[in-house]
């Protein structure tokens, strides 16, 4: 067992020094790989930040429940407790009919409006913030809420929510598409790098096979080479996204201030960075495995 780890440690360190020994060629490769990673990562950051912003947006889809004019305090309390327990509701506030009238007067400069009316024409209302922005769920929630006793209507601006959600969804799909394409590119790039490595070291492979090297012994340094390449490329790509965030954030913040919004790009968190490193290493090793499998069969000793 000790021997097993020793062999792996040796291959890993040899592969790493091999990368360092050809700094220029390795760097070109790493830049290529890290660009392939940085593009979908940057888009992911944008989508993520956009989603975060949408979540915080003051105009988050809201459903307003207008009560029947004849609703009594007991009815209000019943609706209140339903809303409090509902799992798909993030928050709500109650606006009494008196409060609503006062607001209206203040907002529209209609002071004295109430005096001119015989009675308050406005109903009591609950303003509900749903826990979801997914249009279908919103519609379901609206139907459910409008069915509550003594609720006259439940209203919300569906088209606005749909449009916003559609935009974020499109961006997310684009990210997935780009990540898939560039993931394949990453596999192909390492496949090609490892293929070149194998051809450059074919004498060594042939001799090693002749004197008893197993396929896994021959494959191991190439897999580690790919592993390091994946890890280093992921680290560089992470660095690039950090650069993007640092560069873009002041401009975005300034722009958003004009609309009184607080928007900024959010950097990758630690689990995300680890996931990117792991995925890049895996894809690179997969490419290398394909290359070694194919070429080692061709290099059977004669």
């Amino acid at each position: 067992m000790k021997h097993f780890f020793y062999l792996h440690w040796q291959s890993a360190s040899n592969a790493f020094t091999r990368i360092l020994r050809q700094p220029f060629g390795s760097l070109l490769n790493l830049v290529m790989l890290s660009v392939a990673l940085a593009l979908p990562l940057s888009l992911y950051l944008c989508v993520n930040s956009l989603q975060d912003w949408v979540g915080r947006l003051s105009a988050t889809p809201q459903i307003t429940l207008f009560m029947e004019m004849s609703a009594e305090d007991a009815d209000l309390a019943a609706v209140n407790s339903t809303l409090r327990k509902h799992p798909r509701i993030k928050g709500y506030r109650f606006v009494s009919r008196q409060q609503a009238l006062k607001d209206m007067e203040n907002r529209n400069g209609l002071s004295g409006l109430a005096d001119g009316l015989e009675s308050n024409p406005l109903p009591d209302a609950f303003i509900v913030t749903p826990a979801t922005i997914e249009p279908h769920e919103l519609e379901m929630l609206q139907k459910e809420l409008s069915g509550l006793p003594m609720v006259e209507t439940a209203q919300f601006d569906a088209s606005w929510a749909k449009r916003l959600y559609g935009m974020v969804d499109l961006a997310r799909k684009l990210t997935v598409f780009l990540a898939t394409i560039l993931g394949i590119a990453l596999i192909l790039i390492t496949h090609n790098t490892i293929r070149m490595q194998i051809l450059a070291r074919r004498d060594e492979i042939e001799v090693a096979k002749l004197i008893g090297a197993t396929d896994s012994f021959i494959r191991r340094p190439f897999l580690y080479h790919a592993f390091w390449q994946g890890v280093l490329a992921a680290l560089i790509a992470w660095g690039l996204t950090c650069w993007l965030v640092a560069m873009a954030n002041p401009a975005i913040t300034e722009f958003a201030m004009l609309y009184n919004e607080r928007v900024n790009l959010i950097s990758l968190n630690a689990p995300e960075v680890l996931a990117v490193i792991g995925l890049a290493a895996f894809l690179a090793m997969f490419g290398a495995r394909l290359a070694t499998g194919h070429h080692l069969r061709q290099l059977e000793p004669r």
Partner: protein
Amino acid sequence: MIQFDQVTKRYPGGNEALKNLSFSIESGEMVFLAGHSGAGKSTLLKLIAGIERATSGSVLVNNQNLSKLRSSQLSFVRQHIGLVFQDHKILYDRTVFDNVMLPLDIIGFDRRDAAKRVRAALDKVGLLGKEKMMPVRLSGGEQQRLCIARAVVHRPTILLADEPSANLDRAYALDIMELFKSFHQVGATVLISAHDETLMEDYGRRIIRLREGQFAS
């Protein structure tokens, strides 16, 4: 140790290198393999090392039937065999020392003990002073001895040498024969091929003579 039973080897294209050959070599024996080039000497050695597979018949090495082993298992058989190649097959991108280290790396020898083994092997073939050199700076005879050091460093039970003395003058060739004799004396089974029979006859060992893939009588 080594047993051939009605072995025929036909290469793609129809060329029959060995025809229905049967013989055996005992453990600890030293045997010469004679014949002109093209007589099948190299093919015979390649069959023992599992580099080529017999078209028909069976090749037994250490009581293992090589034709029944998968190629991944053949690697392990080869780890117990020392091979000296006619064209050396030295790696020119690393030092003399690292060339000899390769077989020990393959069987996963501990690096510190391995260094001692490598120096011992180099000492045996008289190259100890040149361990840090690159192989291009060695003479033809020295390269051949480097190849021998690599073949014996992991102390194989079988040593196969394909024309080890080809292209060497007689004094060098005798040197190398003496080396093989000393490995034989410590218990290895040794099989050496050559087209020049004058060298072999001095040793009074068994000689297998081949002509066009069959025993020459």
